[in-house]
């Protein structure tokens, strides 16, 4: 377990040089589509990778994000998130390649299988008549796998366009994707990537070009803990515009 247990601990750690400022500048360089599927009501974009945690240096057991700032060329709501590869669906065959489930972590001194939103990202643009899809998943309560209702893909959905998996009644998240498939369509092509979303923070840039900031230490009281090789992305809600997003992660090295 981590041992930074007070504000003074964090200050001392910084004073001893165990910190870094990770600057990022990413671009969604072309407009995305409004939807991935017919059950979606608002657009979601995913930026390129904003940060990948490096190998742990000597004396560091993990990385604590104590502050995040974001500046964007357009106004909307953002989520900084750690994403887990839950698999992919090539709709042409169709063929599903399985990934990982949401991780099991220690929460409240219990080992829990976690859950969250599952994002569908178009990684290869969908063709003009892509057909429909179903996803088989394990829900937030760990019930036996269930399959979503068949939902139509949106024609010609562009790369980086995202949606979340349309869950069955009563469900609010998934633990695992066990399979996915496509039906119908006319010579359909395209690839969908499934991502598990662990949220680290949400921001609102209320005016284009404005700066948004989140102090995780003071506001979350639980600064997100990253391990080596963890990958962070930014999800953009409610807009399809091309945009750039710049910012800084202030990170303190945790200790045993």
């Amino acid at each position: 377990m981590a041992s930074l247990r007070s504000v003074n601990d964090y200050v001392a750690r910084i004073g001893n040089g165990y910190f870094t400022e990770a600057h990022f500048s990413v671009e969604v360089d072309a407009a995305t589509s409004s939807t991935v599927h017919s059950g979606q009501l608002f657009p979601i974009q995913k930026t390129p990778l904003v940060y990948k945690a490096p190998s742990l240096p000597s004396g560091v057991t993990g990385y604590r994000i104590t502050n995040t700032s974001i500046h964007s060329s357009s106004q909307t709501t953002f989520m900084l998130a750690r994403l887990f590869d839950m698999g992919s669906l090539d709709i042409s065959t169709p063929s599903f390649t399985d990934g990982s489930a949401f991780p099991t972590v220690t929460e409240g001194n219990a080992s829990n299988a976690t859950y969250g939103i599952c994002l569908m990202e178009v990684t290869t643009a969908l063709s003009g008549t892509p057909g429909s899809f179903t996803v088989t998943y394990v829900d937030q309560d760990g019930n036996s796998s269930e399959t979503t209702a068949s939902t139509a893909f949106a024609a010609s959905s562009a790369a980086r366009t995202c949606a979340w998996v349309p869950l069955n009644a009563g469900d609010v998240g998934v633990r695992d994707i066990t399979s996915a498939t496509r039906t119908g369509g006319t010579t359909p092509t395209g690839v969908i990537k499934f991502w598990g979303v662990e949220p680290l923070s949400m921001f609102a840039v209320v005016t284009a070009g404005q700066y948004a900031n989140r102090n995780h230490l003071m506001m979350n009281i639980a600064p997100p803990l990253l391990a080596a090789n963890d990958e962070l992305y930014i999800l953009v809600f409610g807009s399809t515009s091309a945009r750039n997003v710049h910012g800084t992660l202030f990170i303190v090295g945790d200790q045993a």
Partner: protein
Amino acid sequence: MAPNFASSTPTINAGLVAEAQNGALHRSFGRRGSSSTAALATCGSVSCYRMPGTVPIPSPGSGVAGFVFPTMNTWTEDPCIMLAGIEYELGSLTVSTNTFSAGSSMPTETIRGVSVQTAAAFCFAVCTVAVTATTPTLTITYTDQDGNTGNSCAPVLPTSPLIDTAFFLQPHLANGDTAMRAVTNMSISTGSAGTIRVFGLLPLTISHNTSSQMFASDMLGFFGPDYISTTSDKIAVYRVTSATASDFIGMYTGLPDPT
């Protein structure tokens, strides 16, 4: 050893110790929301909708009583107010048979070392099964915030409200009443189908969304009321002031509360 949040004023350091010792919760949640039936002045005035599906809270391990939530954010794409809270079913009514089933009472919480019998100012009548009825009068008999029994409210609902439409009850409580502790009876003047449940909320966050922005409300978080949530608790999310179909997305951080 982290201090117990229920018995002492929480501090930043206490939260850090609790998280470091036992591990915090970080969750995202979301789903599609449908349109709802607009409210009338006779049934809450503001249109409300209950997100279908509640957010479960995992079981804590040894030495942990439950979780408090210093951070909870919700967002939807349409301008509205988002309300999230720990939800309790106070009672339900089967419309076709006009049969009432009792639920639970609002809980007793220990806040800053003081045992508090809570009452729900945020109380809603929710059509968890779509109702077939022509401008029905829903009569709810309840126990008020002071423990007095036998008061009633009687909102008049719109005809055949859609599933998951919620009606805000607080404006219709008896004169002088501000909240409900429990529901002791429900009946409806007419109707042939549907189920109406009365839910009371202990609020965790209230956020105001404009069409492209989010106001992340932490004001009810770490330095506000500390409701210690356990496995049996579930978090419900309501869309308020809008009847338009919309998607929901949210996240929360939960800190373990040591025993």
